[in-house]
């Protein structure tokens, strides 16, 4: 029976008398309250992706100075819109949806405190609209009304409405996360000795980092407001930066944990992966929780007023705790895929388990490309930039922009695109409006965006091109100096960036098109989504309940000895990764030592 607010037939799955239905792909016991909110937040997220994508085009065509689309004032406004749409709205609306999947949906529970999901959604939307408004109405007067960009650095004069709207948004996020937290609470109360599934555990860690980040954000934005109104004159640039980056980097760590949680889910459901060591994976999640907030200070490596000892402590003990956790997942996720697929007879030789995987399935290919590209591009450059001294060659250059486009775009956004594809098939129950294009789109987008991020890093490291400016190559206003040598690389950048944005546009078209025009799927027609060899069989002719898929059920045996399964393919890949890491590290350091002498 369709929901009261059903639009386009999007909320019309059949549920039993208690409001549950069983998913034929995952075996989850899905309650309609959970599913409806996952759909709501997910669709909203894609709308923000579209908005952010439009601004990506104008921003890219401005940095590509052959086109030089926008003047300075417009550029800073468009840049602010792009940043908030993508990094905050698209990603955070998706993460609420993912929390609801990872918590109540995996656990087979109803969504508690539905009012909080609804009110949280409304408040988040209100905050987003207010932020858009406060950005769009910026006059650009440097003495009174500057574009906030992402960071809104105190003491730059910025419309107080902006800081207030950001606080509103954070309150909305807190409310929206409440049903997830309550679910965990109720589950632990009902089953005190039982361990949470790994995916739920990951989602829980993400929510805990969110609590820390939101607190940091409230202090940063609240402090900025207090400073603007004269109540906290001591709240200076340094203090703001410290508190801002707790939410600034904290949100990135949430993105990382959410993404990793999705990788465990999809490699299992689509690829037949299993968890090779619950202990190691869970420990890695805990390491993230403890270390990442302190690690936020790697944004302050070349700030005045911070002792070398504090900076080194922060970026190493704290951050390497988190880096080590990433190295762990870098192994356990492919290893889980390799061991799981070998067990199911899909492995052969060193990499047969990987090459025989369902590469045509966009839910799978998005996650795998994300794993590879996030690791090689985002992860390595992140650690390089986080070294106290190397940071001098990266800080505020366009290479930094390349780094975070590798992490949040090639990592998180690509993974979340896979989530949207999955939700379209298994919850909206729609075929892709073009399965061929859906297969192609992740390849298209990942390759375009990877080259774009690479070009950003090249112009930043090879030429020291600054970020956050609209002209520096063809001409620097008011002087005859400019960094003309970077023009050829920027020409490459311009082309690949447009290509990447087209790949993103294709995604939005496919997603929206499938929701509006995709053929409706009846139960059981999702077989091609399932891991090789699996199928959904109804238990009996007149029951709508389904058997858990055999191949997924193979994973439910903790006594199944992990040492019986080969992981040498994963080991080789990780060694290659480490080798690239070492080479990049040595090269970056060597070049630094060739510079003039700096520092006490």
């Amino acid at each position: 029976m369709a929901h009261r607010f059903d639009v386009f037939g999007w909320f019309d799955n059949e549920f039993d008398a208690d409001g549950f239905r069983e998913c034929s792909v995952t075996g989850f016991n899905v309650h309609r309250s959970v599913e409806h909110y996952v759909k709501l937040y997910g669709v909203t997220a894609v709308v923000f992706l579209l908005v952010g994508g439009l601004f990506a085009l104008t921003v890219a065509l401005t940095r590509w100075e052959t086109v030089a689309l926008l003047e300075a004032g417009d550029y800073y406004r468009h840049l602010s819109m792009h940043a908030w749409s993508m990094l905050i709205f698209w990603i955070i609306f998706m993460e609420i949806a993912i929390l609801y999947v990872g918590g109540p949906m995996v656990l087979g529970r109803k969504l508690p405190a539905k009012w909080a999901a609804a009110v949280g959604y409304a408040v988040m939307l209100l905050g987003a609209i207010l932020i858009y408004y406060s950005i769009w109405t910026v006059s650009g007067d440097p003495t009174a009304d500057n574009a906030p960009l992402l960071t809104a650095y105190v003491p730059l004069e910025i419309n107080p409405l902006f800081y207030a709207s950001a606080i509103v948004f954070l309150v909305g996020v807190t409310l929206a996360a409440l049903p997830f937290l309550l679910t965990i609470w109720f589950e632990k109360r009902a089953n005190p000795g039982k361990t949470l599934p790994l995916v739920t555990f990951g989602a829980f860690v993400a929510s805990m980092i969110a609590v820390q980040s939101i607190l940091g954000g409230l202090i940063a934005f609240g402090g900025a407001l207090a400073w603007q109104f004269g109540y906290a004159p001591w709240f200076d640039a340094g203090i703001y930066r410290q508190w801002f980056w707790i939410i600034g980097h904290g949100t990135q760590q949430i993105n990382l944990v959410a993404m990793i949680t999705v990788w465990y889910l999809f490699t299992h459901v689509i690829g037949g992966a299993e968890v090779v060591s619950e202990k190691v994976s869970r420990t890695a999640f805990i390491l993230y929780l403890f270390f990442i907030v302190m690690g936020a200070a790697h944004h302050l490596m070349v700030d005045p007023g911070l002792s070398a000892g504090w900076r080194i402590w922060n970026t190493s003990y704290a951050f390497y705790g988190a880096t080590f956790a990433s190295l762990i997942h870098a192994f356990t996720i492919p290893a889980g895929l390799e061991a799981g697929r070998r067990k199911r007879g899909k492995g052969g030789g060193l990499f047969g388990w990987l090459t025989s995987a369902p590469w045509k399935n966009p839910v799978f290919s998005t996650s795998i490309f994300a794993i590879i590209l996030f690791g090689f591009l985002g992860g390595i450059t992140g650690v390089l930039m986080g070294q106290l001294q190397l940071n001098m060659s990266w800080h505020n250059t366009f290479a930094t922009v390349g780094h975070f486009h590798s992490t949040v775009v090639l990592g998180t956004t690509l993974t979340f695109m896979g989530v949207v594809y999955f939700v379209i098939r298994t919850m909206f129950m729609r075929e892709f409006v073009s399965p061929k294009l859906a297969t192609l789109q992740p390849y298209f987008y990942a390759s375009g965006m990877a080259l774009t991020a690479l070009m950003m890093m090249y112009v930043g490291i090879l030429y020291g091109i600054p970020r956050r400016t609209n002209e520096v190559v063809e001409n620097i206003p008011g002087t005859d100096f400019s960094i003309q040598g970077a023009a050829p690389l920027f020409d490459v950048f311009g082309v690949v960036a447009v290509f990447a944005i087209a790949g993103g546009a294709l995604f939005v078209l496919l997603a929206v098109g499938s929701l509006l025009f995709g053929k409706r799927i009846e139960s059981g027609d999702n077989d091609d989504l399932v891991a090789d060899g699996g199928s959904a069989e109804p238990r009996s002719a007149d029951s709508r309940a389904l058997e858990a898929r055999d191949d997924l059920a193979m994973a439910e045996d903790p006594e199944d000895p992990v040492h019986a399964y080969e992981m040498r393919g994963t080991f080789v890949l990780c060694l290659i990764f480490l080798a690239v890491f070492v080479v990049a590290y040595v090269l970056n350091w060597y070049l630094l030592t060739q510079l003039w002498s700096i520092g006490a």
Partner: protein
Amino acid sequence: MSNTNTTNGTPLEYVQRTLRQAWRDTLSIYYANTTIWRYLKSGALLWFGLMIWAFSNLVLSYQPDWTFMYYVMAYGFVLVLWGPLTHFVVVPLVIRVRRSGTTSPLRFVARHGSKLNLTVFFLIVIVLGAMPFGPMVLDFQPPATGDDGDTASVNADLECAVVDDVIECELTDAEGFDHAAVMSGGEDVKTVDGPPYEFELDPDEHDQFVVELRDEEGNQLHRFVERVEGVDSE
């Protein structure tokens, strides 16, 4: 599938065995011909080529006398094209010919196609390394002709002082711009033509203002921000 981590045999034998296995694995990857393998190999080589090319340019800009880096640079540069060419075109072709070809010229291709391909590749690398040409080498300094950008330097010093409750400002050492505009609250408050570029403001109305230097078309060339608290009284 059992674990093959046997540890018998001397260390030397272990190394030999590992190397032989690694060579066999390399060959099998080189000749792997499914669609996904073609994409993975080409993608990885394209990547690797781009990296090597960029790193070489970078190192060369720091050490201009390390001319051997031109060969490394050429390797990366050519690989960007040759990697995908090899794995999307050459290797599948060689394999197809091996399976079907029986006539002499085809037999030659089947048996030596890959070696031929690699030979041509390295020849091109050596030639380019010896004679580095424009698109391969990145520039890290302004062009020799000095013809970079069409703007001359814009110079001026903004000096302001508070005299009898009025802010008097002057742009000294002014060059490179057509006129100045004083902006407050985002709007133009006055236009300043000169020389001399002098103007007065009421500090009660405008306690912060922007002085913008513009060209004939009104494009912004340079800006100053002045805040009254920082201005000395005379």
